[in-house]
């Protein structure tokens, strides 16, 4: 009885392995035609770092505008 159980167990594992292999083949078969094609863009990728710099410039301009008005009050 004990031997039988073990044997059955082995069978179950083997069956599962077979199932796994089958699943893998299925997946491979379905995946192949649906390959994701990665292509390098023909245009260069541009990352705009100007945003941060512009913000800093605007901040400095705030101070500069104050001074320019104070120092040239006759034209403002």
């Amino acid at each position, binding site marked *: 009885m004990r031997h039988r159980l073990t044997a059955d167990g082995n069978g179950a594992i083997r069956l599962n392995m077979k199932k796994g292999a089958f699943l893998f083949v299925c997946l491979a078969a379905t995946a192949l035609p649906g390959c994701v094609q990665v292509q390098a863009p023909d245009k260069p990728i541009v990352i705009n770092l100007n945003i941060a710099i512009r913000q800093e410039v605007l901040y400095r301009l*705030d101070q500069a*505008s104050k001074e320019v*008005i104070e120092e040239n009050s006759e034209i403002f």
Partner: protein
Amino acid sequence: MALSEKMKDRIEMVAAALLIGAAVAGSGAIAQRDPAYQQARADGLIGEKTDGYLGFVTPPSPAVKALVDDLNIKRKAKYTEEALANGATVEEMAFRTGCRLIKERTAPGEMYQAPDKSWKTRDASPPVVDVRCP
């Protein structure tokens, strides 16, 4: 003795006069607007534009036009100077100063340009300024 007392008084008066004179000269260093410019502002003939320059609310007389053109040229020179010193464009510098001019330098009764380009009369309430203004 009485004479020296008088002398002292006189010296004190002269010193006071000199001090007052120096104070007046000091405040004179803060240059004032040309009276014609001040008048044109007060009369609502001209106003502050959003771009940092003066504009005409009504078609200007040759005198007012000459006055405003001259001031705008001088303003542009200053904006250019400051823009260069701060790594900004002249337009950015002018615009930023324009925000400040509208908010801080227009008195009630004077004209300013709203973001939609319409002319508004400044009153006691805060002016309508561009969203890009700080």
